[in-house]
C-alpha cells in the first residue's frame, strides 16, 4: 500500500500498488456468495442486478409452489431397488400448508392406517418430504438415497419402504416412523429456499419416533445440494449419526455431530468414497 502520488491530491489516500479498483472488487466478490460489488446507478442498483434478483426470487418462489411430482420421485427411488409408499399430511393444499404448520405435521387418517398395516419393525424409516422446496426433492432425494444405501447395507440396517410424503413438515416423520414401528426415522425434506439456494435439502434424524417429539430431540443435516454439502458427505453424516443414535439410544442436542472429525481421518474418508463407488 502507498499514498496517492498525484500532485493534485491533497489527501493521504491509500491505494493499491498494482490492482485497479475494478479488479479488486472482482477479487472481493469471489470471496463471498453475498451480492457485493454490484455497482450503482446513482443511488440505485444497476439494471442487471435488479433483473438478476428478480430471476432468483422467481426461482425460489417456484421451488415453494411447484407441487412435488410424487410419481417421478417414487420411480427414481424404486430404480435404486428400494420399496416405496405414499402418504400425505392433513394440509389439503399449498395455501393451507403455509398457513397451518400443525396440519403439515399430522398424517391424513387413511394414510396412517395404510402405513400401520404394512410390515413394521425396521431399523430406519426414510421419509422423502416436499417441505418448502419440491425442487430440492426432485433433484436431490434419489441421489442422496443412492449414496446412503451402501452405508445401510454395510451396517446391516433394515430399511422400511421409503415413504414419499406430500404437504409435509419435518414432524410428520414422527407419525410415519411410529406407524411403521421403526427404531428411527430420517426425514429428507425440501428446506426453505434461499434466494441463492432454491434446491437445498435438509435431513432430520429422530430416534424412537412418535407424535409430540420436539425439535431438540432431532439431529439436523442441512444445506444438502450440489453447491453445498454433497450427497456423499451428507449420506456419510447420516450414517454416522444413525450408528451413534442406535448405540447411545438418543438423538438431539445431546448427540453431538462429530462426523467431520471422523471424515477427516483417512480410514473413514475412504469409506465415504467406497460407499459412493459401491
Amino acid at each position: 500500500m502507498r499514498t496517492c502520488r498525484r500532485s493534485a491530491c491533497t489527501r493521504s489516500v491509500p491505494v493499491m500498488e498494482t490492482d485497479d479498483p475494478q479488479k479488486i472488487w472482482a477479487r472481493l466478490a469471489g470471496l463471498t456468495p453475498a451480492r457485493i460489488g454490484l455497482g450503482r446507478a446513482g443511488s440505485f442498483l444497476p439494471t442487471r442486478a435488479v433483473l438478476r434478483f428478480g430471476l432468483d426470487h422467481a426461482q425460489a418462489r417456484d421451488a415453494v409452489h411447484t407441487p412435488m411430482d410424487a410419481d417421478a420421485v417414487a420411480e427414481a427411488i424404486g430404480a435404486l431397488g428400494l420399496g416405496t409408499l405414499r402418504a400425505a399430511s392433513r394440509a389439503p393444499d399449498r395455501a393451507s400448508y403455509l398457513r397451518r404448520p400443525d396440519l403439515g405435521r399430522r398424517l391424513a387418517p387413511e394414510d396412517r392406517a395404510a402405513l400401520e398395516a404394512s410390515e413394521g419393525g425396521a431399523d430406519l424409516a426414510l421419509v422423502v418430504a416436499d417441505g418448502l422446496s419440491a425442487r430440492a426433492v426432485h433433484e436431490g432425494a434419489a441421489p442422496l438415497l443412492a449414496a446412503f444405501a451402501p452405508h445401510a447395507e454395510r451396517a446391516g440396517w433394515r430399511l422400511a419402504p421409503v415413504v414419499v410424503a406430500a404437504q409435509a413438515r419435518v414432524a410428520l416423520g414422527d407419525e410415519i416412523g411410529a406407524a411403521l414401528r421403526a427404531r428411527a426415522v430420517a426425514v429428507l425434506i425440501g428446506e426453505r429456499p434461499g434466494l441463492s439456494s432454491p434446491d437445498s435439502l435438509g435431513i432430520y434424524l429422530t430416534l424412537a419416533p412418535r407424535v409430540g417429539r420436539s425439535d431438540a430431540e432431532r439431529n439436523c443435516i442441512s444445506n444438502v445440494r450440489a453447491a453445498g454439502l454433497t450427497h456423499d458427505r451428507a449420506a456419510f453424516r447420516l450414517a454416522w449419526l444413525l450408528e451413534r443414535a442406535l448405540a447411545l439410544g438418543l438423538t438431539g442436542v445431546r448427540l453431538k455431530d462429530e462426523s467431520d472429525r471422523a471424515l477427516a481421518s483417512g480410514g473413514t474418508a475412504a469409506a465415504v468414497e467406497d460407499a459412493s463407488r459401491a
Partner: protein
Amino acid sequence: MAYRHVVGPRTHVFADLAALMAKATPVRSGDRLAGLAAESAEENAAAKWCLAEVPIAEILARPLIPYEADDVTRLILDTHDANAFAEIGHLTVGDFREFLLTASSGTLARIAPAVTPEIAAAVSKIMRNQDLIAVARKARIVTRFRNTIGLPGTLAVRLQPNHPTDDPAGITAAILDGLSLGCGDAVIGINPASDSVQALGDLLHLLDEMIQRHAIPTQGCVLTHVTTTLEAMERGLPVDLVFQSIAGTQAANASFGVTLSVLKEAHEAMLALKRGTLGDNGLYFETGQGSALSADAHHGIDQQTLEARAYAVARVFRPLLVNTVVGFIGPEYLYDGKEIIRAGLEDHFCGKLMGVPLGVDVCYTNHAEADQDDMDTLLTLLGAAGCTYIMGVPGADDVMLNYQSTSFHDALYLREVLGLKRAPEFEAWLQGIGLTDGQGALLPGPAGLPLLGSAPGLAA
C-alpha cells in the same frame, strides 16, 4: 370480566381483555393459527369500537398475564411511572389516540415511561397506518455508544456482512462493500454461522481491527447468545455491543435460554468495559411478532401485544438498538406483504411510544406472499415514520440466514427521496475519508477507493 358491543341486532361478547385485544387486532395468520383472531370482519370492527371505550387505567389495572406468573409482567408494573401516568390516566383508548395525534415531541417523551406495552398495543389496534406513522415520527429517542443514533432527520444502517461459513475474508469483503456505499453507522453486526466462543473471538477481533484501522465512529457486534458473549467478555475479547433476541413473556424468553437476571449481568459487564466513547447505550436486542406462539408461550394473547411486551424488557436496559425482524418468521405468522407492512408499522410505533430506539429489519422469506415492491413500500413508510435504523445486507440477499432484507442501495434510495442523514459522526467520517460530499452523497468514481487498502489478500 366480559366486554360487549352491540351492532344492530347482534351483541358481540369478548370474554376478557386479552380476547378483546386479540379480536381488535387487524387480522393476521399468527393470531388465526393460535385461534385468537376475529372470526368475521364485523367482529374485528366491533372489537375496535369496544376497545376504544376502555379506559387505559383499566388496561394498567388488569395485567393480561398475572403478576405472580410472569417476570415480564412484574417488570412492566414495577417500573411503571405513576407520576407520568397522571397526565394520561383519565383517557380511554380512543381518547388516547387523539391525544397522541395532537401531542408534541416533548409530551411524548414525558409520557413514555407511563406507557405500558399493553396500552401501546391497545391504541395501535385502533389506529390506521397513517396514525402509526404520524405519531412515531414525533417520538425521538436518541442513543449513544461511539456515535449518536436517532437524531431528527437521520436514519442509521446496520451493516450485516454475514457469510455462510463465517469466512473472515468474505465477511471483510462485505463490510468494505457496505462502508463504500455509506452504511454501518448503527452497527457492523455479524450473525455467525457457528456458536463457538473461538469463532466468536475471531469475528470480534476482525470487527475491532477494522473499526480501529479506519477510525470508524461506529460499533461492532457479533449476534450470538448473550451467555456466549458474557463468556467472551470474561476472556477479555473486544465486545462492543451485547446482543440478545428477546420476547414478551417469561416462558418465551426461557425458550431463548435467557432470563432477566442474565440480561442484567450482561448489561453490567458491558458497562464495566467502558468501550463506548460518547455514551453507554451498549445493548442490542432483536424481537419479532410470533416468537411467543412459536415457543408455545403466548398465554392466549395476540402476537402484536406480546411483541410490545418485548420492548418493555428492552427498555429497562437502555439499549443502543432494538429491531423487530418483521417478516423473518414466515407466513404462518405474517402471511403476505400487507400483514408484514402493517406489523412493521405497529412494532415501530409501539417501540417509539414506549421510548425505545426502534429500527426495523424490513424483510421476508421466499415462502411468504411478498416481494421487493412490498419491502419498498414498508421501507418508505418507515422512513417517513422516522425509523431509527434499517438493515444493510449486500444486494438484500442474506446468504447465511436465507431471507431477503434491505440493501445498502435501499438506504441510499431512502436518503435521496426523504433527505435523511446518517449519524453525524459517521457522516463526518465518510466525508473526511473522501467517500461523500458535504451533503452526504456518494462521490463518483471507483467504489470505496479510500478503504480498499484493507481488502483481504490485497494489502501490500
